[in-house]
């Protein structure tokens, strides 16, 4: 594929969904079937184009392939902003992921959102999101990345709040956007620090400048941490993780697309793209934040009863894994996990969507509007009734738990190897692998808990059970496709070793060296990973088995009673169930004081400043104008203007005596006049 074709395809991939958005927004409602075929058509075309690009990448076998094209957006002499595309192997892979999951979401939504009151608008927003996400993927500079970053945040807001009549959905949308913005402040500061020092926004130029030593040390660390803050917000890392669980208020296809596979992955993508500019200090911060998030979110997931919330915290935890990978230097492994996670997490979400859909139907039939269709405690034994859903979700759960033969095993293994090698070289950071392996245990545990509670055992609400049925084709098709893609083989082609990640991915997507002088080279990191590979694999297998066994005995065999343990560890159970009271504490210590501050400021502005100062001005002006008016009317008009008139009249009246009507008087005046004139003349 020629360079030009690549760029043309990229342009099409970027703008087709935007066109679909525009069409759907303006005339969607009037099209047949409310225009969902417009959106689906655009996205599937994108998918075809990205498959074409991907195929050419596989054929070309160029690990260092990179194409860049930019145009000058703003040129003010000394200040120039250039925007453009960067297409390399990472970009092509990511484009494929986005296109695939987006198409799946579109198809899934046809049945899931059937009869929704804002059907066409929903598809429009999906198209808008796809456009924004592709923008992030294709960006070659910080400015356009930031622009599309914000656009993605907007689409998230619009889609989470799709059912905005529900107060909780509207609040969740706001929360998502605002938390994102907090992270974006850091992002923006990072951008500014880089621009003010290096004078450019383009990635390649930044990397070159840093390698040349133009920026370094604390300043670069701060810039790196700032940029990472943006990733923290977008990828829901601790402490900005609060929005992702609430974002489950949106429709499930949206959750699958954005909050599992793509949007939240944008933060990881940013870190992967900008890896060369992170200093060791920034990377350490990243690693600890990611590692802590991984284990922290996992501990919350084990007690949650809402099926989507479990998946949400699972996503947070997995994102932590990816960030941990980038921080440890194994950023290619992190990206690998991003790709595999997109597949199986989206599949899990679609599965949960399928289950919820079935529950909705059953409850609706029974005219039951109080029971929560998403609560796992109301499910149970769905395995027979929804076989396709069951098998798809089981495959995905096996993948996420890191069981061999599945994709998740390969990617997780790579990450854990990365952390292990990092800790080997710097033993002080021993916590990182502890976080990693600990989270693996817990992940396996709660994911299988979900499977057992939903699909196995006795149905908890027997009256519903009869009406539960498998979902329609449009919903099961994505399930089948994505669960298939969660098998190891698609990532190890053309090799077939399930225990080695050696395949097209590792051959084509290679790490580049860090640009920061003094950072370990990619070669060094790869060596370390290679050495730690087998120990990590062994430990992860043990750990996964432990988690599955625990879950199996608690929820399948019911040998260990979950409730007893919950009672025994009541305080910890409570903490976990209530997400460590994060939202409550944030509210008490952050939101309320800030709201109080704003109301104080508002009071000062409205009741003090406006009332006294501004109105005072008004009153003074009024008094002043009253006096000027008086001066003008009474003084000027009456006295002076009228006065002139009056005095003229008086003078006239006074001079009336001259007109005596007597001839001799006139004559006298004439004489006097003559005398005066002559006198004046002679002088």
């Amino acid at each position, binding site marked *: 594929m020629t360079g030009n074709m690549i760029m043309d395809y990229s342009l099409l991939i970027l703008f087709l969904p935007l066109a679909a958005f525009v069409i759907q927004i303006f005339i969607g409602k009037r099209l047949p079937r409310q225009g969902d075929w417009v959106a689906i058509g655009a996205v599937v075309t994108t998918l075809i184009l990205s498959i074409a690009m991907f195929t050419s990448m596989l054929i070309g076998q160029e690990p260092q392939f990179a194409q860049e094209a930019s145009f000058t957006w703003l040129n003010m002499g000394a200040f120039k902003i250039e925007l453009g595309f960067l297409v390399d192997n990472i970009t092509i892979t990511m484009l494929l992921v986005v296109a695939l999951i987006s198409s799946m979401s579109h198809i899934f939504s046809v049945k899931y959102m059937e009869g929704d009151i804002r059907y066409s608008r929903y598809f429009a927003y999906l198209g808008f999101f796809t456009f924004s996400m592709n923008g992030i993927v294709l960006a070659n500079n910080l400015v356009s990345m930031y622009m599309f970053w914000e656009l993605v945040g907007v689409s998230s807001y619009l889609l989470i709040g799709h059912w905005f009549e529900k107060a909780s959905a509207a609040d969740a949308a706001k929360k998502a956007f605002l938390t994102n913005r907090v992270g974006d402040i850091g992002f923006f500061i990072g951008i500014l620090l880089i621009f003010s020092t290096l004078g450019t926004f383009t990635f390649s130029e930044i990397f070159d400048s840093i390698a040349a030593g133009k920026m370094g040390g604390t300043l670069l660390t701060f810039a790196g941490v700032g940029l990472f803050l943006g990733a923290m917000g977008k990828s829901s890392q601790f402490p900005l993780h609060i929005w992702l669980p609430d974002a489950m208020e949106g429709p499930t296809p949206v959750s699958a697309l954005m909050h599992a596979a793509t949007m939240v992955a944008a933060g990881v993508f940013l870190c992967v793209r900008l890896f060369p500019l992170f200093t060791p200090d920034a990377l350490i911060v990243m690693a600890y934040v990611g590692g802590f998030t991984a284990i922290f979110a996992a501990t919350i997931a084990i007690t949650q009863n809402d099926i989507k919330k479990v998946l949400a915290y699972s996503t947070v935890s997995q994102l932590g894994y990816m960030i941990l990978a980038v921080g440890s230097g194994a950023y290619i492994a992190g990206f690998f996990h991003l790709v595999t996670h997109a597949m199986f997490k989206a599949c899990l979400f679609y599965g949960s969507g399928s289950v919820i859909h079935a529950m909705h139907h059953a409850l609706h039939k029974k005219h039951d509007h109080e029971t929560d269709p998403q609560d796992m405690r109301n499910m149970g034994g769905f395995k027979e009734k929804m076989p396709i859903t069951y098998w798809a979700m089981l495959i995905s759960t096996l993948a996420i738990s890191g069981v061999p033969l599945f994709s998740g095993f390969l990617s997780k293994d790579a990450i854990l190897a990365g952390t292990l090698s990092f800790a080997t070289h710097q033993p002080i950071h021993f916590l990182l692998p502890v976080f990693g392996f600990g989270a693996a245990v817990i992940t396996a545990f709660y994911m299988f808990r979900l499977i057992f509670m939903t699909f196995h055992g006795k149905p908890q609400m027997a009256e519903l059970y009869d009406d539960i049925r498998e979902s329609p084709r449009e919903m099961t098709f994505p399930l089948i496709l994505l669960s298939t893609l969660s098998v190891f083989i698609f990532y190890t082609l053309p090799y077939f070793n399930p225990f080695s990640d050696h395949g097209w991915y590792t051959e084509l997507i290679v790490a580049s060296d860090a640009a920061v002088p003094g950072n370990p080279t990619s070669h060094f990191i790869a060596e370390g990973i290679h050495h730690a590979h087998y120990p990590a694999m062994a430990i992860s297998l043990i750990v996964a088995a432990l988690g599955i066994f625990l879950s199996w005995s608690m929820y399948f065999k019911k040998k260990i009673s979950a409730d007893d343990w919950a009672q025994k560890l009541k305080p910890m159970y409570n903490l976990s169930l209530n997400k460590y009271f994060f939202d409550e504490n944030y509210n008490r210590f952050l939101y309320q004081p800030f709201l109080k501050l704003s109301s104080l400021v508002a009071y000062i502005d409205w009741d003090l400043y406006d009332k006294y100062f501004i109105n005072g001005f008004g009153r003074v002006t009024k008094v002043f104008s009253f006096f000027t008016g008086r001066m003008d009317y009474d003084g000027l008009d009456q006295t002076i203007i009228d006065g002139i008139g009056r005095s003229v009249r008086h003078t006239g009246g006074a001079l*009336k005596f001259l007109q005596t009507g007597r001839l001799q008087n006139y004559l006298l005046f004439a004489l006097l006049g003559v005398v005066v004139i002559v006198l004046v003349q002679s002088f």
Partner: protein
Amino acid sequence: MDSLNTYLFIAAILFSLGLFGVITRRNGVAVLMGIELILNSANLNFLAFAKFGGMNMSGHIFALFVIIMAAAEAAVALAIIINIFKNFHTINVDDVQGLRQ
């Protein structure tokens, strides 16, 4: 003292006196008398210039005509005064104030 200036001065004094009479006297006939004085002073001037100023006989002719004018004018003026007396029953020019504002 037979010089031009003498006669001119005399004429000037006569003129002023006549003017005084015109503007001061209340009686219409008295006003008329003042006018006659003025005319006479003018005549005196003419004749003085006729002798001293080289006008010769032209001055005399002029003075003659002035006298004739005076006669005509006196006749008409007296006729008017008599009419005023008939209408206003007074010949105090003060009392004829129809044009008063």
